């Protein structure tokens, strides 16, 4: 629900339309972006396991995509990857 004024807010500052976290795009403050190199990837899924923001999507046991709406650019995926299949690149401004 979209609010226009204080009058629209539920009392007690509660949030009714849960879950609301998908609407909160937390990825907009990253300064580096993971660049995925599929040729090197063995799909051990360590990055998927370690990503603190569940920004790596897996389908049928394989890396599907990096969801940049929620990726905060921490680089954990790149550092954990034994194949160097993820590279952190500077965000273009």
């Amino acid at each position: 629900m979209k609010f226009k004024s204080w009058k629209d807010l539920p009392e007690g500052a509660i949030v009714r339309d849960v879950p609301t976290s998908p609407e909160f795009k937390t990825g907009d403050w990253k300064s580096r972006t993971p660049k995925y190199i599929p040729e090197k990837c063995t799909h051990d899924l360590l990055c998927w396991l370690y990503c603190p923001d569940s920004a790596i999507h897996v389908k049928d046991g394989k890396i599907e995509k990096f969801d940049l709406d929620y990726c905060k650019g921490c680089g954990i995926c790149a550092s954990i990857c034994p194949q160097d299949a993820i590279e952190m690149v500077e965000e273009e401004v």
Partner: protein
Amino acid sequence: MKTKAFIKHALTGNEAAAYAMKQINPDVVAAYPITPATEIVQIFSKYVSNGEVTTEFVPVESEHSAMSVCVGASASGARVMTATASQGLALMHEILYIAASLRLPIVMVVGNRALSGPINIHCDHSDAMGSRDSGWIQMFCENANEVYHTVIMAVKIAEKVNLPCMVGMDGFIITHGMEVIETIDDEEVKRFISKRTPLYSVLDIEKPITIGPLDLFDWYFEHKRSQLEGMLQAKKVIPEVVEEYNQRFGTNFPAFLETYRMDDAEFAIISMSSAAGTMKEAIDIKREEGLKVGLLRIKTTRPFPYEILREKTKGLKAIGIMDRAESWSTMGGPLSIEVKSALYPLDKRPFAIDFVFGLGGREFPIEDAFKIIDITRKLSEGEEFPEFVHIGLKE
């Protein structure tokens, strides 16, 4: 319909509060003992052990935890009560704001006591005044009988407006002073308070919600404005509930402000809590001597009854405001500051002076009440005084 089926008991303020809590039979009570309010929950825990109430009693390790448990329980839709005083209230401070902003109608009895330091266990209002702006409804009772009835009314008021409510009584003077209390029947209490209809419940899995979310510069301001709506609503609901109570039980309690011998008064004393009782006696005596003095006893300070004060002080030459707390503003105690700002927009305002008295349980004998009346009278005749004076201080 009046049911004047009072049962008389000799009870202290603490006992009266505990007795009211027994009749209310809240779903949850979480508390930590502190002088002079310890007895309230001590007695209540006996009711729990004896099976006289069905309350879930949670003895916690601190007042911060006590209020936190109250918040959690109340957010589940339960009827929740607690009691504290002084340092205990201070330790709850952080959670008081959360209870109010979550719109949880917790009712808490406060045995008003001085704050450290130096350490002092006796009466003044610095504890409750410290939580003035926490978003709680705040009421102060003159005697133990009023405490008993106010606790019952507070449950209904709080639950109607979804705001927490503090019921204050002067530490030791009322908490430990024995009086004749006129109680109403258990069934009558139940009928009056009926059942709580919560705004929401965190246990309602059919309607999942998030409570206490992060709320930054985009909506926090709007949420605070929305919270104010509860306090504005309380201004209507408090008189309604008090009126309903008075009607039903033939009592005569004020909602916001009690007027005493104000009819032809030329000047008035504005007071709160037990000191008002002493002041009434002093006013009776001074009236016999021909002084046209009256009393305005403020019962409810949040929401603050500024419109009523404007109305009731109309035509007065002077007011003497009594503060049992310091504000450190160097312009007197908190009550006087609020009373004076309430009257500021008027074209014709009475002269005003603040009396800071009774800190840390310093006694308030009738001679001091005479002194207050005398100074206020002189002020009404044009004599000049400082912004505030101390009464009962070793000068």
